[in-house]
């Protein structure tokens, strides 16, 4: 966990006081909406269907229990008692009042939480994976570098008015849980032959109207050069990214139109002129940052403690343990995923009461730390295996122990037309119905790992392009219809899904998904051949036939 110091806190407070003044000037009419909109977006404030939506940053998905409690407080005091965790590791509140936002921000600033640049045409949350720092086999904790980048990009005077939003993601594991290939800049931390830490830099990934998988611009950028190299990319983008058409303004379009070689050349030319500037990172800077990250004082614990042996004959506990508990790099410990996808519930939501309870459990069982994943689930990253049985009982009691992690009912969905003013169709009720259809745990386990992603419009906040099954809401003659894709993936083998046929109406989506799953079960080569691999092997045709035979 990174500890904010006096300087970090001062900056957040200065930002809050600036925004308070800006809100005052908007409410008095001194600022028009045209002048104010970008300012409020830069503080994470959207206008949605019913109300403002407030997106709070959770840098690289790491929260302290104190911070989680404060989020619960904001949900209660300023909203309707719940929050929604997003596909970028942030949290959203849906009913916030503009006039109360400065106070909400001040309450959050107290515990080192802010909403800077969670929207607007600037650099957004630098995401990582929710297992950063504890995953076995990780090269080093990528969050050190996420924090370095977070500070570098926060209120950057040159890059606060880019052509469009700009998103970073970092992974330090062979298996990419941070989806770096679909980010504007994706960073894969690794070591070169000399053992030095550096990054493979990918650029131009992104979803939305025109999905692209990121391309490698440089296979190895030394850690010392990370900021100067990023600055070169941003400067080229700031100057040459399109500003005439918001649908063509992301860096992925610039990279596509120039070609990766030409783009890389432009960046290299710029970089060579500035690499030895004030942005060159000293080892002492990294060490200072690293020293501000605290890690738990892990005990020496057995892998198979008595408590675990005893609990093994409880089938419910075992079902949960096999599904939601993951190996930790420290023996005797585990990473526990808390499913925010209860049967019939809106995916990714948590009530204020749940947040408080989870904060308490984090204090008891996870050294006070919680993680947020882009799958819209939470995690407790430092749980002693001997505590798993007692933790499970507590999690089950508050409804966050549904053993469906990574299964068909662990659905990623955007808020959709129930909340969002950009949407064409609803997504949450679709997700809810799907969780009901696949509520049976045996069935879900039989199906195995299957990621369903739902977006209510082409902006793709649900990341449908990279879902194993992707569902995109569209509008036809005033009715909600849905395009279905299959075969997408967001990891190191990232791929955009393929459309299986014409859009289907709202009432048929769950049936279609059932048909797709049935087809998979009939076609898979072995019980352990994953859905995504069956699609890869056979293509979409057999699925298309099955789904559209009677439609």
């Amino acid at each position, binding site marked *: 966990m990174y500890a904010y110091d006096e300087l970090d806190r001062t900056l957040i407070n200065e930002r809050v006081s600036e925004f308070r003044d800006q809100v005052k000037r908007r409410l008095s009419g001194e600022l028009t909406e045209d002048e104010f909109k970008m300012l409020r977006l830069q503080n994470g404030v959207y206008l949605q269907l019913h109300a*403002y939506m407030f997106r709070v940053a959770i840098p690289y998905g790491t929260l302290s229990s104190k911070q989680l409690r404060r989020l619960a407080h904001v949900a209660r005091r300023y909203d309707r*008692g719940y929050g929604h965790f997003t596909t970028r590791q942030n949290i959203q509140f849906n009913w916030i009042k503009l006039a109360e936002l400065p106070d909400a921000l001040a309450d959050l600033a107290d515990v080192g939480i802010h909403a800077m640049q969670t929207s607007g045409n600037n650099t957004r949350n630098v995401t990582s994976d929710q297992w950063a720092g504890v995953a076995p086999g990780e090269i080093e904790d990528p969050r050190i570098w996420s924090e370095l980048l977070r500070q570098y990009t926060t209120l950057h005077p040159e890059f606060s008015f880019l052509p469009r939003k700009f998103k970073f993601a970092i992974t330090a594991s062979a298996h990419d849980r941070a989806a770096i290939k679909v980010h504007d800049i994706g960073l894969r931390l690794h070591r070169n032959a000399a053992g030095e830490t550096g990054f493979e830099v990918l650029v131009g990934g992104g979803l939305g109207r025109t999905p692209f998988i990121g391309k490698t611009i440089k296979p190895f950028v030394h850690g010392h050069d990370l900021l100067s190299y990023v600055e070169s990319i941003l400067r080229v983008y700031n100057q040459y990214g399109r500003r005439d058409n918001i649908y063509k303004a992301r860096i992925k379009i610039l990279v596509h139109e120039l070609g990766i070689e030409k783009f890389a050349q432009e960046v290299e030319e710029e970089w060579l002129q500035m690499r030895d500037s004030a942005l060159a990172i000293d080892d002492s800077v990294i060490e200072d940052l690293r020293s501000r990250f605290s890690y738990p004082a892990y005990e020496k614990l057995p892998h198979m403690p008595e408590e675990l042996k005893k609990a093994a004959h409880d089938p419910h506990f075992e079902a949960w343990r096999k599904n939601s508990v993951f190996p930790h790099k420290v023996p005797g410990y585990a990473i526990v995923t808390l499913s925010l996808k209860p049967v019939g519930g809106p995916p990714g*939501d948590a009530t204020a009461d749940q947040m408080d309870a989870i904060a308490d459990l984090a204090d008891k069982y996870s050294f006070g730390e919680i993680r947020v994943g882009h799958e819209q689930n939470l995690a407790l990253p430092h749980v002693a295996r001997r505590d798993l049985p007692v933790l499970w009982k507590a999690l089950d009691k*508050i409804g966050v122990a549904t053993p469906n992690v990574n299964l068909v009912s662990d659905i990623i969905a955007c808020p959709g037309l129930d909340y969002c003013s950009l949407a064409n169709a609803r997504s949450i009720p679709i997700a809810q119905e799907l969780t009901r259809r696949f509520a049976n745990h045996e069935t879900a386990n039989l199906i195995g790992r299957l990621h369903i992603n739902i977006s209510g419009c082409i902006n793709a906040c649900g990341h449908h392009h990279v879902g194993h099954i992707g569902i995109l809401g569209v509008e036809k003659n005033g009715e909600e219809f849905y395009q279905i894709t299959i075969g997408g993936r967001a990891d190191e083998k990232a791929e955009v899904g393929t459309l299986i046929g014409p859009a289907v109406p709202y009432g048929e989506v769950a049936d279609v998904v059932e048909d797709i799953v049935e087809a998979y079960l009939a076609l898979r080569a072995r019980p352990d051949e994953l859905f995504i691999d069956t699609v890869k092997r056979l293509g979409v045709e057999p699925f298309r036939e099955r789904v559209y035979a009677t439609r």
Partner: protein
Amino acid sequence: MTSPLEQKKIRITGPSMVTANRTWDGVVIYRTARQGWSADLADAAIVRTSDEARALLTESIADDVGAVGAYIAPVEIKDSGKIKPGNLREHIRFQGVTIDLPVPA
């Protein structure tokens, strides 16, 4: 429900109104016939031609101290004269979300 934020041309196909959100708290509001805003759909000014719609929208956008994001939306007028939202999006804005809100325990 293609987002009306993408409306470039103003062309209405039936009775319509102008709606927005209240600046200070984001509540849904409707443009009235008296150059004002009301949170009650019954108070909404109804326009029936594209010219009328354009005029109403222009005047609404100019009045942006109290209102944000004004746009034209369809309504349905019942035989009784009652005004109802004219599409799913407006229905959702009028009634609220179509799902149960997570109820605090």
